[in-house]
């Protein structure tokens, strides 16, 4: 790995994003609006808001960065800039790491902003440390980024890439335990949920909210970390130097 190439890619991705203030506004505002709606919908004191407010806060960056990365990477593939990069002396992992770092930076801002709002103004409370929620949110953003990178290899157009979001993300949100506790699911659904990375991301957040920072929490975090590494490896495999 080459630090100067990685930072060049990260800076370039952020420069591109800066040219698109509307996307930045959406990335930062949408989670805040949704968290506000959630509070209004169930009420400040309700157990529902208190229970799902924190995990949801940590999952927003996953969804956003999945989408943003898959589109950015698809553009890189279709405009020929990836082909040009592939003729240059760089390692594929440098590209992936650059993307991951750029979107992690965005996720820090996004997660910090929605945390300030939720914990500060909306009355969301969590038994565990609030900074840990932000850290997990950023880790989820990196997970979303790496998965988005991988998935972009299977899209030919931006229409397809956008559709991959519900296809790859919604089932994970449904099965991660956010809506129905996984213990109450049909056995086969629970079995499927064990295979989905978001299940562990949600678990870690829910345990942070309940301040259950036990061995199970450590395992959840380790699985999320492992999924990031796996997604990077899969992503690297889709970045081919030679194509048809």
């Amino acid at each position, binding site marked *: 790995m080459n630090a100067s190439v990685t930072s*060049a890619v990260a*800076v370039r991705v952020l420069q591109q994003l800066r040219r698109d203030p509307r996307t930045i506004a959406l990335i930062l505002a949408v989670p805040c609006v949704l968290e506000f709606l959630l509070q209004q919908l169930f009420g400040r004191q309700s157990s529902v808001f208190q229970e799902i407010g924190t995990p949801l806060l940590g999952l927003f960056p996953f969804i956003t960065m999945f989408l943003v990365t898959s589109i950015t990477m698809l553009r890189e593939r279709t*405009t020929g*800039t990836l082909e040009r990069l592939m*003729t240059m002396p760089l390692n594929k992992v440098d590209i992936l790491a650059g993307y991951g770092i750029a979107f992690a930076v965005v996720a820090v801002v996004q997660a910090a902003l929605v945390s300030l709002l939720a914990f500060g103004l909306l009355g969301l409370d969590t038994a565990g440390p609030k900074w840990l929620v932000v850290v997990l949110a950023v880790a989820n953003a990196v997970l979303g980024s790496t998965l988005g990178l991988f998935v972009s290899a299977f899209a030919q157009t931006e229409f397809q890439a956008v559709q991959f979001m519900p296809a790859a993300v919604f089932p994970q949100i449904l099965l991660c335990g956010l809506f129905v506790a996984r213990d109450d699911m049909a056995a086969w659904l629970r079995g499927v949920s064990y295979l989905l990375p978001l299940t562990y991301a949600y678990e870690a957040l829910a345990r942070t909210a309940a301040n259950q920072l036990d061995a199970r929490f450590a395992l959840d975090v380790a699985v999320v970390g492992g999924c990031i590494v796996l997604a990077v490896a899969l992503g690297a495999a889709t970045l081919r130097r030679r194509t048809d």
Partner: protein
Amino acid sequence: MVGAAVLVHDLEVVRGGTTVLPGLSCEVPAGRVTGLLGPSGSGKSTLIRSIVGVQRVAGGSVDVLGRPAGDATIRARVGYMTQAPSVYLDLTVQENVGFFARVLGQSRSAVTRVLADVALDRHRDRVVSTLSGGERARVSLATAMLGTPDLLVLDEPTVGLDPVLRRDLWDLFHRLAHGGTTLLISSHVMDEADRCDALLLLRDGLLVAQATPEELRSRTGTSSLDEAFLRLAEAEA
């Protein structure tokens, strides 16, 4: 006789079930400007992509600067300009070239130099999406020239440029060749053939001729290269 910078032997490429190059052999002399000419669809871009090592090939061999095409040890020595300008539309000219310069470990002065070479220094702070097609192509060309590569492979670099700029670029190409750079430049415009030291004429994925412009003229007994290409193509058929 100069040595060859690129040696293509029996190259076979199949794209989407169609054989684009059925077994092409040719060479690109070192330190010269070689024109790769032929109608669109003749396999020029496929050959170029094979030489820079991004094309999946079905058979044969391509050696570049003494190594297999695409080899990690020669990547820094080969500059490549794709046919469609491969630049970031939402970045400025400076940011685009600056990014690739950092990837290649080149200094800021290298960026300034290549932008001056393609006459884009005045536009360095403009976002690429606001540039014309010809200007975008020059951003792409500037990027390919970063790091003064030993081999420059340019896929239709002068399309859509005004005649003055075209002449300036061809002068630049020859200056580079004079300094020892090997250039392979594709075009489908025959009037550019005369500006080349050597020519590769391609048709339906086959090499119709490999010669200098003068050799082609004397071999076909015509004064125009356009006519010479027609005669060669008809003789093949």
